[in-house]
């Protein structure tokens, strides 16, 4: 099921090896779906030239004050592209 724009989501806090496109500084953080970008081949397989499933890619918006408690302007935001399998569907 595709998540709707505005849904609050938490990024999974895990550390698999490989060609991962979820930056460490966002793992475990909570943000809001900014837009749905559509289906893309999962780069975690694509990078190794093995069959890659298509995953929904989202743009997720985080507040700077949430990522960095000492941020200069806490209302500033950080948007990043996050694949669906990095979104913790069971998070509150």
């Amino acid at each position, binding site marked *: 099921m595709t998540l709707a724009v505005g849904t609050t989501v938490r990024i999974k806090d895990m550390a698999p090896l490989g060609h991962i*496109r979820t930056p460490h*500084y966002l793992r475990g953080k909570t943000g809001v779906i900014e837009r749905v970008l559509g289906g893309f081949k999962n780069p975690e397989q694509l990078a190794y030239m093995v069959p890659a499933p298509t995953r929904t*890619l989202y743009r997720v918006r985080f507040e700077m004050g949430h990522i960095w408690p000492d941020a*200069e302007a806490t*209302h*500033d*935001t950080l948007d990043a592209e*996050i694949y669906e399998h990095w979104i913790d569907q069971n998070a509150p």
Partner: protein
Amino acid sequence: MPHDHHDHDHLSPSGHPYRQDNDGALTYWQTMEIAIRELMIEKGELSAAQIQAQIDAMDERSPANGAAVVARAWTDPDFRNRLLANGSDAAREMGFDIGPMHLVAVENTAHIHNLIVCTLCSCYPRNLLGLPPDWYKTREYRSRAVREPRAVLREFGVELPVTTTLRVHDSTADMRYIVLPARPAGTDGLSVDALAKLVTRDSMIGTGLAKAP
């Protein structure tokens, strides 16, 4: 001696330090590139002229392409809407061959400023802006642009009021980004071509603003 450099082991006979060049042996990947290129030509898969044509095409891309897109968006509200809705289609509509690139345009307004970075590597909308500046690829910019972006902007000469919301965009996956800078004041009578000359590379990354006329 014309100059009194202290490290005399690294001076040329003219007294200047040697500049590093291609002094070492080819790396594994350099050798691989040459071998594959020569094999492709030998087997007739590609010609040397085709390879040169592709290099020329890549070298021809410059920030002037992005500036033309920005100036059009400043003067054509319908185009601006199409650009913000689908950056790739809008760039193609203007005749730019951007290949399979997925372009997202983000707009600066009176209260929002946008900044682009790629923390994981150095993703950049090359198909539209040409080669990225060297600093864009440094670990310093890539880490500080997300950790202390306002401090980075100050070093570029951009002081954001606290009432402005700064939106940093980390191109972590398949999208590439271009900032649609705010149109400078006092430009009402300018032609599209004159407006495009005000659009700098850095203003499309977000580390700068469009120039005043």
